[in-house]
Every structure is written in structure tokens, then in C-alpha cells.
């Protein structure tokens, strides 16, 4: 099935010209991506709650029922047991709660911090190719030639939200959380940056789409660069503040850490930011190491020419991301928290030399192959 390109479908619109069409299509893509991302965030929270419940011998959220759908026999109660509607209730609750601003906080930063946490998580998605093409349109918001540099630049901003929140709250636990977060960032981010350099040495440029085309036919970089992947994975845990590296948050020590003083929608923004970060990190790992939207069999390694193929590619990409999300969630309920000196030790004294060695060995092998 080959539908005409979307541009001609919109032929009845006043002629927008090349730039106009580009803007319109980009807008549609952005709306689509943000909608999918937010839905995934909401349901990642549900999966987190369900998986944690099962690991701890509990049943998890199973009470929220919608009036009409809940009355359908068998299906309605089943969906309620699954907790499918819980994210709706959570969302409504966040909006309805009192948005309390304590008297002792630094107001401007206090208001700024949740946004500063949330925005980078969403901006990173822009460069990730989440599918091959649909109707002849490339499924990436911005096909930048400096994709990975952009990503690292934006991702580093994410920590400012937490540090700012810790500073703005003007009380001890958030402050400790903020300090830990900054210490954590400098210790993992260098290792993270160095770990992906070999990937781009193999690919030859920084564009994420070409990283994926390099990995077509099952030539996934994870098999070439397992050490780089491992370091990136651990650093991703540290970056998203997930256990075992959730020092800025550590509920048990810092009563919630940087977000202690937050309530209502501002807290929800931090929460959504954390999950959005997990999704973008998963997407980055899928793109850099696990072949992006390609599969080595079934003819999924070449860009799609049909609508169904394009949708299948998006599905493959989302499937891989979901696998990583479940992994993220599972690890949280599996491992205890590291001390933050242990994380710094890991970052500076183990991973930094390891990634440098990896970089060097890759370079030598490539040089030997070239000669």
C-alpha cells in the first residue's frame, strides 16, 4: 500500500510553499512525538508501580475504574485490575492539588527549576530517528549533522534543574540532593562522553541517522563495542538519577532530596522529567548501540517504502525502547543505592581509564585495518 505523500493530501490547503510545508509537517511530527512521549511517561509510571508491586509480593494499583468502560463485563474489570486508568487519576490529582510555595524558598529559581528539568528531557528527543520514513517523510524531528553533540549539550543542562531546585528550596535536604547531583554529574558525564567516541569513530560522522544506517543488517554496534555500551548504560542510570545511582533523590536519606519542597504540578514536572529522561536515554542507547529502528531479519533493515513498513519501523523502535524502560525499572527494585563517593570512584577511577583504553584500542584496530 503506497499512499500519496502527505504534502499532496494537504493540497486543498492554501499553498504554503516549501518552507510552509516543512513547518506544517514538523509541527505535526512534534505534536505526535510529544503525545507519544507523554503517554509513555504516564504509562512508564504505571509499569514502575506494577513491576515494583509484583517484585514486592503486592498487587499494585488496581482500583481506578472509568464509569462506562468499567461496566463492560469481563473486559472492564480486567482493565481496572491492570490499573490502566491509574495514570489519568494521577494526572488529575496533580492538577487539583494545592500548589504550595513555602515562604522560605527563593521564588524565581523555585519556579524555574521544574521547567529546567523537564525541557532538556524533551529537547533530546528531537535528534533521535524514531523510524525510517512515513509517506516519504523522514521520521526524525531534526536530522542534525551534530546530533550527538547536541544531545550531550542538552542532556548536561538537565542537571541544572536539580541543582537549581536544591538551591531554591533553601533547606538542608534539597541542598544535599543538589550537591550530590552536581558531584554525580561531573563524575559520570566524562565517562559517558568518552564511551560514545568509538561509536562515531566506527560510523565516521556524528549524525544519528547514519549511525543507524551503519547498523543495518544486524551489524549492531553493541557487538563491536560492548565496553562502550556497558559504560554508557551505567552512566545513563547515573544521568537519569535512577537506582542504584539515585543519590540526589534518595528518599530514605534525604526525604525526597531536591524535590522535598515541591508539591502538585511542580513536583509532577520533576517526576515526568525523570521518566522522560529515562525514555530519551533508552532511545539513545537503542539508536547508538542496538540498531535503532532496524531489525536484521524480515527485511526491516532498509528504510521503508510503504506506509505499513514505516509504521513497523516505528513499532520496532518503540519496542526496543520499552525493553530498555523495563530494564531501567527492574534494576531499581533489584539493586541497593551506591554511596556517592562510590559512584565518583566508579566514574573517575574505573570508567574513565576504561573508556580511554577502549578508545585507544579501537583506534589502533581501525588503523591496523586501514593499512
Amino acid at each position, binding site marked *: 500500500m503506497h499512499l500519496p505523500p502527505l504534502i499532496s493530501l494537504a493540497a486543498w490547503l492554501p499553498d504554503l510553499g516549501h518552507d510552509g510545508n516543512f513547518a506544517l509537517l514538523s509541527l505535526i511530527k512534534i505534536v505526535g512525538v510529544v503525545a507519544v512521549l507523554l503517554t509513555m511517561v504516564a504509562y512508564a509510571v504505571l509499569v514502575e508501580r506494577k*513491576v515494583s*508491586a*509484583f*517484585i*514486592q*509480593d*503486592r*498487587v499494585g494499583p488496581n482500583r481506578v475504574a472509568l464509569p462506562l468502560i468499567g461496566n463492560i463485563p469481563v473486559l472492564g474489570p480486567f482493565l481496572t485490575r491492570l490499573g490502566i486508568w491509574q495514570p489519568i487519576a494521577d494526572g488529575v490529582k496533580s492538577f487539583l492539588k494545592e500548589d504550595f510555595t513555602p515562604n522560605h524558598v527563593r521564588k524565581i529559581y523555585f519556579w524555574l527549576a521544574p521547567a529546567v528539568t523537564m525541557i532538556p528531557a524533551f529537547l533530546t528527543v528531537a535528534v533521535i530517528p524514531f523510524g525510517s520514513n512515513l509517506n516519504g517523510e523522514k521520521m526524525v524531528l531534526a536530522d542534525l549533522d551534530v546530533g550527538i553533540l547536541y544531545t550531550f549539550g542538552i542532556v548536561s543542562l538537565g542537571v541544572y534543574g536539580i541543582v537549581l531546585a536544591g538551591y531554591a528550596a533553601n533547606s538542608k535536604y534539597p541542598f544535599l540532593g543538589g550537591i550530590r547531583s552536581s558531584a554525580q554529574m561531573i563524575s559520570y558525564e566524562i565517562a559517558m562522553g568518552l564511551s560514545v567516541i568509538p561509536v562515531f569513530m566506527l560510523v565516521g560522522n556524528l549524525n544519528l541517522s547514519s549511525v543507524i544506517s551503519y547498523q543495518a543488517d544486524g551489524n549492531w554496534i553493541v557487538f563491536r563495542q560492548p565496553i562502550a555500551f556497558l559504560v554508557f548504560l551505567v552512566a545513563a542510570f547515573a544521568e537519569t538519577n535512577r537506582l542504584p545511582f539515585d543519590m540526589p533523590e534518595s528518599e530514605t536519606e534525604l526525604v525526597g532530596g531536591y524535590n522535598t519542597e515541591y508539591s502538585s504540578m511542580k513536583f509532577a514536572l520533576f517526576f515526568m522529567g525523570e521518566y522522560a529522561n529515562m525514555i530519551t536515554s533508552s532511545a539513545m542507547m537503542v539508536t547508538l548501540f542496538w540498531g535503532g529502528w532496524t531489525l536484521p531479519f524480515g527485511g526491516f533493515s532498509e528504510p521503508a517504502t510503504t506506509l505499513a513498513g514505516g509504521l513497523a519501523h516505528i513499532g520496532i523502535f518503540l519496542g526496543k525502547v520499552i525493553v530498555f524502560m523495563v530494564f531501567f525499572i*527492574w534494576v531499581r*527494585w*533489584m*539493586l541497593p543505592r551506591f554511596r556517592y563517593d562510590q559512584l565518583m570512584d566508579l566514574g573517575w577511577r574505573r570508567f574513565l581509564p576504561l573508556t580511554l583504553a577502549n578508545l585507544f584500542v579501537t583506534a589502533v584496530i581501525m588503523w591496523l585495518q586501514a593499512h
Partner: protein
Amino acid sequence: MIVKRDKLTFWERLYLPALVGGFQVTWRHFSRTLFRGKAVTMEYPEQKWVVPPGYRGAPYLVKDQEDRTKCVSCQLCEFVCPPKAIRITPPGPTGAPGSGNVEKGPKEFEINMLRCIFCGFCQEVCPEEAIFLMKDYSLTGTNRQEMIYNKEKLLSLGGIHQDKIQKWKHKADEAKAQDVFPVPPAK
């Protein structure tokens, strides 16, 4: 105190055994809960906890086997009650007609369940075995007034106490026997 810690072996320092062990434990619990339904959660309104014997739930009044209120308005429970949750209106000098032998049955007996601390002193102090802490632990109401249980409610919730002694029955028999002439010779 200095705790001696063994040096970790190289294998342990790789962190892999801990990962594998952690996964085994979490997977065991996960699969047991999800696939075999072995969750420990008791889903409250549908499933209710069965209380052990000796549990101190809500205090209710009881009747004896002959459907008489056992309480005789001595007000000991009212005085002993630490939070002053009990209020008894005694029958007054006219007594309570229609209460059989127990002419001192209370006119009104109220327990404020919001005040009650379920200490069981009322049961302990009662000379007539007329009030017992039962197994109800989930008392609900939509307003404060509803949580003040009156005599009828307490009696209907308390039910009949299977009393072995049946003090008032024997009193009645004795009284009847005294009316009989001539007095039967003592055995």
C-alpha cells in the same frame, strides 16, 4: 567496635554475582506474584481480616438466653472508662417495667465509638458480664452523631451471651421456691 570485613575477591568486585543474585530474587518474587497469584496483599473491602481470639474490638451489650438485657445500670463501666465514652441513663426509682427480673436495666446506654479506645476496662469491670469487646474493628459512619451507638444498636450488635451461670434465672427459681408452703424439708 571494629568490624572486620573480608576483602572482596576479584569476582565479587566485578559486581556480576550481585547482579545475578539480585535478578534471581526479584524474578522469583515477580513470577510468584504475577503468574501464581501469591500476593500477600489483602484487598480490604472484599477480603477481611479474621481477628484472633482475645482481640479487643468494639464493646457491645449482650442479652442472656432469656432475652433479658444483662446490664443493671451499675455505671461501673461509665466510671472506669478512661476516655469517658460511655453514658448510661439509669431507669430511676420506678425501675424498668417489662425487663423481667432485671428491673435495673438501663433506660439508655450510649457508647461514643469515636471516643472509645478499645481498652476493655468496661468488660473487665462489669459485674454482670453484660458488655463484651467483640471482633468488629471497622466502624464507619458519615457523621459524629452516627458514631454514638445507643442501647438498641449495642444490644442488636451484641446478640445473646451464652451464659453458663444464669444468675438471674436461679434468683427467680429461688424466689418462686420461697413462695411455696410448706417449705420442702432440707435435704
